[in-house]
């Protein structure tokens, strides 16, 4: 084989093409735990999307006559302290919780990826400045920082999303920077540079597509933990405000009637737990599928 042919074939082997993702999907499909995770995530996502069609009752309408009713044929999971149907509130609550997870991770993804790209690609002071700032943000316990931001900005879903987004920025920035540092050493980037590709083109066409795998994994795991953080904030009264159905907020005052209506405290928690388990299983599976070398 000639020298030139070797150079040309190298990128095809290293670069993450459509074939790479097809292979990853095949590996993912063979992983039962990951498939279980995906099924859970899809189930909750579909239920949230179809909430108006499948929720048996209005999630906000109060019926003070029917307070704290146990699970029955009419109210499958019982009612809460204001006589609202728990099942309907959990189905609608999924809309809130999943939206918060997706929006806040989207925010962190956008900002974190940009910062990580700049730090890893341009290096020098851009790298030092960005990464030292990220280190300082990581010097705060994440939940504490989120509570602090919402506490100062004022309770509410928008501020909760902002806070959860902010605490996730350093995680994405670090992952992206690390991947960029690895990818920019690769021969195909050198080759593109030698062919006269501009920096923008290098970033968009050669580096970005090759750092997607860890970003996809982190986004999946991140949505799970964002759902958890958001529920925690809402539980404290800092996230979703009444009467918006949200899983964490649904647990806030359940302690007061725990003995009389344990179902009101039980089911919203199971919804949070299952959703987060789903995202974690899927995220772990994606990591194995996208980077088989990491599999243990």
């Amino acid at each position, binding site marked *: 084989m000639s020298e030139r042919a070797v150079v040309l074939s190298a990128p095809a082997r290293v670069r993450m093409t459509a074939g790479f993702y097809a292979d990853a999907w095949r590996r993912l499909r063979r992983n039962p735990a990951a498939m279980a995770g995906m099924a859970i995530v899809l189930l909750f996502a579909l239920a949230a999307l179809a909430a108006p069609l499948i929720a048996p009752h209005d999630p906000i309408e109060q019926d003070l006559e029917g307070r704290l009713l146990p699970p029955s044929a009419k109210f499958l999971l019982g009612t809460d302290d204001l006589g609202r149907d728990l099942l309907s509130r959990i189905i609608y609550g999924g809309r809130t919780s999943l939206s918060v997870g997706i929006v806040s991770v989207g925010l962190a993804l956008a900002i974190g990826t940009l910062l990580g790209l700049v730090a890893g690609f341009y290096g020098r002071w851009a790298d030092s400045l960005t990464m030292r700032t990220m280190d*300082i943000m990581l*010097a705060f316990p994440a*939940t504490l920082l989120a509570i602090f931001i919402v506490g100062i900005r004022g309770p509410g879903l928008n501020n909760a999303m902002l806070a959860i987004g902010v605490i996730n920025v350093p995680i994405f920035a670090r992952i992206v920077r690390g991947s960029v540092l690895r990818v920019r050493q690769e021969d195909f980037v050198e080759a593109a540079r030698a062919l006269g590709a501009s920096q923008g083109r290098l970033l968009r066409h050669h580096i970005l597509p090759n750092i997607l795998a860890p970003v996809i994994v982190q986004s999946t795991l991140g949505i799970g933990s964002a759902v958890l953080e958001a529920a925690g904030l809402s539980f404290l009264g800092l996230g979703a405000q009444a009467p918006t159905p949200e899983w*964490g907020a649904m*647990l806030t005052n359940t302690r007061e009637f725990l003995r009389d209506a344990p179902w009101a405290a039980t089911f919203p928690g199971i919804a949070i737990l299952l959703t987060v388990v789903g995202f974690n299983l899927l995220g772990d599976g994606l990591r194995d599928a996208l980077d088989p070398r990491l599999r243990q």
Partner: protein
Amino acid sequence: MGRYLGRRLIELIPVFFGVLLVVFAIAHLTPGDPALVMLGERATPEAIERLRDQLGLDEPLHVQFFRYMGRVVRGDLGESIQTDERVIVELGQRFPATVELTLAAMLVASLVGMLTGAIAAARQNSWFDGASMVVALFGFSMPIFWLGIMMILLFAATLGWFPISGRLDFTIDLARRTNLYVLDGLLSGNWAAVGNALRHLVLPAVTLSTVPLAIIARMTRSSLLEVLRQDYVRTARAKGLAETRVVTRHALRNAAIPVVTVIGLNVGSLLGGAILTETIFAWPGVGRLVVDAIFARDYPLVQGAVLMIALIFVVVNLLVDLSYVYLDPRIRYG
């Protein structure tokens, strides 16, 4: 080691500076006039002006920041809006409760987590391995505020084994020295108080330990599996050593570094989780103080508490780094 320690301590200075800057910056994200927000709509213009003056809000931002830094360095975190008490005093009163809770949770998480992970690794692919890793997955994904409520429902409200909330029954008389009640009980030989404080501690500590426990168990398992594949472990086995001895004496110590890192990193999640746990169990610590202060718009108190917790976290991370030297003599620092 001395030089290394010195360098690490000097490196803390910019981190402290950065943490202060972030706290200051976020504290200035208040929508509108902080003095108005803190005092409420019905405050008189004079009261607002007085508070603005007291907080130095009319100064340029950089002047405010350097003034703030100067005060913090002298240990002055301002005064609570609600009680007029110095923030550092308020925090000092609540701090022992949080320390007791997080230490207990860390102890549970480390011991149970390492033991579970070690057994799971030593018996890879056994039913115990499978079951413990499924439990760990659920523990890792657990909304601890919900778990706390479920614990109260089962162990306090239904079975009556543990108290629902608080740190100590009012009927118990305890000489308070450290305000770590279990320790105070031990120091004064007051066994009734020790037992009572421990009974109050069990549910909050177990709740708070759940997430780090799961992470530590997973980390111990994977780290130990890696070590058990090494040549020197095969040598130890070939010498005819019992499997327990191979695992405990040869493998565990070498598997400890990533585990210690994870334990250290989880101090952060514990301090964050303490806010939720203290709220559920009415545990009178710094976490609950923060939440109460937020709803009372007592910003100096919120700001002081956040700053203190973050600085503690930074110091703990340094201690974790330093502990590597003891765990692995191959790591040398110049």
